[in-house]
């Protein structure tokens, strides 16, 4: 698709969408948002680029293969559940650590949500890149 407007808008929108996706992911525990939406928004950023400039540039700027995102996400989610096992609690018991700075809190739920984010983003991109590239 050779649209100047789309092409120009993509340059601006892609970083913005990526940033929004991270924002939505991180605030998800307390405000509307979370890993599912975040992953979808992140995927849309790269899908937008794939539509505007083609799949190869989108793949290049993603740097990792989508299926690595899927695998990494699943491992992250599983690891978040195993942390509690290491602490002697049953699998997937939530654990929270208060960070000494800014009153932030780290929790296994957040880690799990990051896993969800990665799987959703990876799966969507894997699907759409494959289908678009498959065009005869």
């Amino acid at each position, binding site marked *: 698709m050779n649209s100047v407007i789309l092409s120009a808008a993509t340059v601006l929108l892609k970083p913005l969408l990526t940033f929004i996706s991270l924002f939505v992911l991180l605030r998800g525990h307390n405000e*509307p948002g979370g890993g599912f939406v975040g992953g979808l928004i992140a995927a849309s950023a790269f899908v937008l680029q794939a539509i505007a400039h083609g799949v190869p540039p989108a793949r290049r700027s993603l740097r990792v293969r989508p299926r690595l995102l899927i695998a990494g996400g699943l491992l992250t989610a599983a690891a978040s559940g195993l942390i509690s096992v290491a602490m002697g609690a049953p699998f997937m018991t939530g654990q929270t650590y208060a960070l000494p700075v800014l009153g932030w809190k780290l929790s296994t739920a957040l880690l799990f949500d990051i896993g969800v984010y990665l799987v959703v983003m990876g799966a969507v991109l894997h699907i759409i890149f494959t289908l678009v590239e498959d065009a005869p």
Partner: protein
Amino acid sequence: MTLVLALTIGLLYGAAMYMIIRRSIVKLVFGLVLLSHAANLLIFTVGGLTRDHPPLAPEQAALPHPPAVADPLPQALILTAIVISFGVLAFVLALVRRTVASAGTDDLDDLRTTEQ
């Protein structure tokens, strides 16, 4: 409002089923999309409708009983259902594409046997 949504859901289901039982494999895909909308709305409506109050707990104060917010459980169910139906839709599309490419037809009645 439940009545309006009941009408909407009924129409969505009817339309989805009609599209699913067409012979054209392309229409089947649309049927699936409509069907997932219908199912999501059904769960959402049956779970009870609450205007404007998303299920967010207040910062400090205790929650009133019963909580005057929307039911979070159907929402959690639907949220994953939305994303998974996207995955299923993509899989179906890939399957349709492969089928049409290798069988050379989009008529489901021509796809009765596994042999070509």
